[in-house]
């Protein structure tokens, strides 16, 4: 039957149009979130695409259409976790201890003086030397297990409770992963600065 008054088809079209009208304006934000979550541009596109497909399927059950952006971001976060969970290598317990104890603040304080001081504050000088792309590259080197919650916090400003829901783990686990994510990132920035000759470790 090719009639135009099929009530089921009409209802589907109405839902689809409403979803597109509400959800597609958030596409640039979702793409940014995806591109920060995964290293490859192709993976980011697939992640956003699949988020919208899943979003449309669940849209009729969404109670508050005004909350659609956060809702889509949580879907995207869960998809990212499901897809990339397997790719995170285990970190040895000894390494975790070293990560927990790492302090970029202390290393900068102990480093030889910056050969090109700017502000007289070595901690401030340290950060100002990094081009944007190196910060993003350092973040992408974090294992998925740690990068995903940190990016959801930074880009989407999720609370610990929202992160726990999106990642399917307790709030305590979120806290510990965010702590380690930041410490690993500090380590990556330090190593990057050393490679570029911006700092030298002081003799101990």
């Amino acid at each position, binding site marked *: 039957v090719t009639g135009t008054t099929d009530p089921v088809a009409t209802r589907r079209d109405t839902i689809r149009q409403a979803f597109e009208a509400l959800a*597609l304006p958030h596409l*640039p934000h979702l*793409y940014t979130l995806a591109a920060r979550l995964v290293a490859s541009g192709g993976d980011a*596109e697939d992640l956003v695409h699949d988020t*919208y497909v899943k979003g449309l399927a669940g849209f009729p059950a969404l109670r508050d259409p005004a909350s659609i952006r956060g809702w889509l971001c949580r879907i995207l976060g869960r998809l990212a976790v499901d897809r990339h969970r397997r790719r995170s290598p285990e970190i040895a317990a000894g390494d975790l201890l070293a990560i927990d104890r790492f302090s*970029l603040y202390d290393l900068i304080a102990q480093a030889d003086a910056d050969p090109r001081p700017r502000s007289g504050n070595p901690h401030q000088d340290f950060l100002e030397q990094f081009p944007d792309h190196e910060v993003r590259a350092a*973040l992408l080197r974090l294992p998925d297990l740690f990068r995903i919650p940190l990016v959801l916090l*930074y880009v989407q400003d999720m609370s610990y409770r929202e992160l726990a829901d999106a990642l399917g783990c307790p709030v305590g686990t979120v806290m510990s992963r*965010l702590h380690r994510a930041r410490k690993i990132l500090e380590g990556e920035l330090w190593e990057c600065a050393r490679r570029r000759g911006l700092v030298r470790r002081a003799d101990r």
Partner: protein
Amino acid sequence: MINELGCEVAVQEFFAYLDRALAGEAVHELEEHLRSCLECCDRLAFTRRLDWFVRYRLREIAMPDGLEERIRRTLGRAPVE
């Protein structure tokens, strides 16, 4: 009874404090400690600056051409329930 917070414990709470995930007595204790410890104030200022430094670099980026079209095409065919 209010326990006096040591620097080591205070530093461990910085991230939760900056993320507004610390509440009640824990916030009070940390802020009490900060009032009397310049070293921790410096460390917290650096931690906050580093946080914003990274956040700022994750701001919105340009979408690839064709992504919206690809999504619209799939949504046109996808089932709705």
